């Protein structure tokens, strides 16, 4: 009986995880700039892989395998936001532009924010070193 429940639960979980990975990949190719692509890859992608590892933990009958799968899930939940944040911040510091239809840039320097018109808060001075 418990085997049946394990199999059905693992099947549902692995379909959900693969669906989230596919959503993340579609978001990665459809979204306009690096900052919004980072949302898709870090959130949906991490959730997809974690749910699939949870499916592996559900279907396994060995305590060592379950512990390792849960440790892997914890590890990815810890490191994925760090790496995504670091990459986005590095891209911003390097001067990669936001999408031209972005409406808000909260990391804009304060001196620029003072002098820009309030109607167009997304206008950001080009910081490319040339």
């Amino acid at each position: 009986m418990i085997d049946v429940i394990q199999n059905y639960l693992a099947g549902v979980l692995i379909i959900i995880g693969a669906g989230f990975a596919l959503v993340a990949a579609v978001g990665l190719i459809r979204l306009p700039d690096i900052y919004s692509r980072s949302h898709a890859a870090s959130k949906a992608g991490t959730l997809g892989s974690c749910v699939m590892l949870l499916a592996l933990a559900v279907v396994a009958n060995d305590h060592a395998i379950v512990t390792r799968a849960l440790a892997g899930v914890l590890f990815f939940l810890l490191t994925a936001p760090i790496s995504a944040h670091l990459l986005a911040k590095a891209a911003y510091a390097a001067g990669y532009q936001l999408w031209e239809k972005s409406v808000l840039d909260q990391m804009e320097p304060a001196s620029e924010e003072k002098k820009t018109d309030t109607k167009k808060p997304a206008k950001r001075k080009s910081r490319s070193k040339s």
Partner: protein
Amino acid sequence: MIASETFLSFTILVALALLSLSFLVTVCRVVIGPTLPDRILALDMLVVVALGFIAAIGIKTGYALYLDIAIALGLVGFLATVAFARFVISRAADGEPLVPGNEMEGGSD
């Protein structure tokens, strides 16, 4: 019992198909990605999809040794992303063009 195992093997096949599709889409982003951070992000996504493959194969075959490889792969992906982020900063500080094909890196691939 038999019905649940058939259901599990069918869902693993579907999950492998979905993962293959997402792998292909992500590889498209690696190839066409206009800037370097796009490609780095897509490589990070490839690591995630590889983890999904490892989990699916681990359920399908019951061979759990790949789980250690999954943890090591996650660590390597994290460190690679961190190192690439530092590289993005230092590359911009050196005055390289942000988008390839402007002046120096002749033509985007």
